[in-house]
């Protein structure tokens, strides 16, 4: 398993905000994700986007 989701990027600004530290951004849904979801994106604590993330699964279904 990769150590992070293939759709995860870290960005330091949105249309409305700039962040001192880059934050987790999901390229499937095109938005920053909540901190709890970022743990899935980063495969922390045994989480796996291919199993635990509905955004990932919807994206794979669409392909």
């Amino acid at each position: 398993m990769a150590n992070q989701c293939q759709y995860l990027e870290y960005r330091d600004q949105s249309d409305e905000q700039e962040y001192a530290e880059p934050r987790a951004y999901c390229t499937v849904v095109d938005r920053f994700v909540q901190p709890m979801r970022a743990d899935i994106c980063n495969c922390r604590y045994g989480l796996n986007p291919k199993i635990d993330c509905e955004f990932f699964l919807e994206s794979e279904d669409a392909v």
Partner: protein
Amino acid sequence: MGYRSYLDRNPVIITAALTGGVQGKETVSNLPESPEEIAAAAEACERAGASILHLHARRPNGERAFSRERFQQVTDEVRDATEDMIIQHSTGGTAAPDELRAEPLMTNPAPEMASLDMGPLNRYERLTSENTRQLVKDLHSVMRERKIKPELEIFNGGHLNETLHILDEFETPPYVSLIFGGGTTTIPHPRNLINLVDNLPTNVEFNVLGFGPHQLPMTTTGLFLGGHLRVGMEDNAYYRRGEFAESNAQLVERAVRIASEVERPVADTSQAREILGL
């Protein structure tokens, strides 16, 4: 407890839940995340009338942190910024391994209180915070060893069933939080609050919190039932419909005003400690 407590004008303890562990600045730009931001919010909430601070820790990028070291940074900053607040660390942590869940209990000094989730709850589409009975027992055991009073978080009626079985383990009045919102929390309705309160033993002190638009009505209803209340941006980012809260303190200030209007005196910290048996 109950309406009699309201008639007796018993003091209400106000908890401020400043940050939480779910959303961050991507959702609420003024949510305090860093230790310094959390400390500033804590100081403002103390001035506004809160006596308990419910704390979570975050990494520098806003993501969740469970380590003792990060909680130490947060609690040190908060203790420096405030005069005399009851510090309550969260032990919540959907998907985090059990051993990490006890980390917030290990700061020096230990927090006076800590949350204890009393059963499973769902998150997103595919996550469940399991909070097994064994984990509840293990966390409670650490709390007893470290003389930390648990805030028993009851997200639904099933969790109250779980809680009733352990109440005889307490030497001081048990303190439970009745939680209302969507998903696995209790359906937010005054009738359901009354029902839960009716099922509490008489020696239990209860706190009410509601998520999002339910924060104001459920906490206000709790005032008439003798309950304590929790407000803050962890649970609700809005001051009113379509208008974000300016700060955690703004939500505390409103709670203080409402309590005053309905003639529930707001407990200062020493009164809160007395009520809680700290």
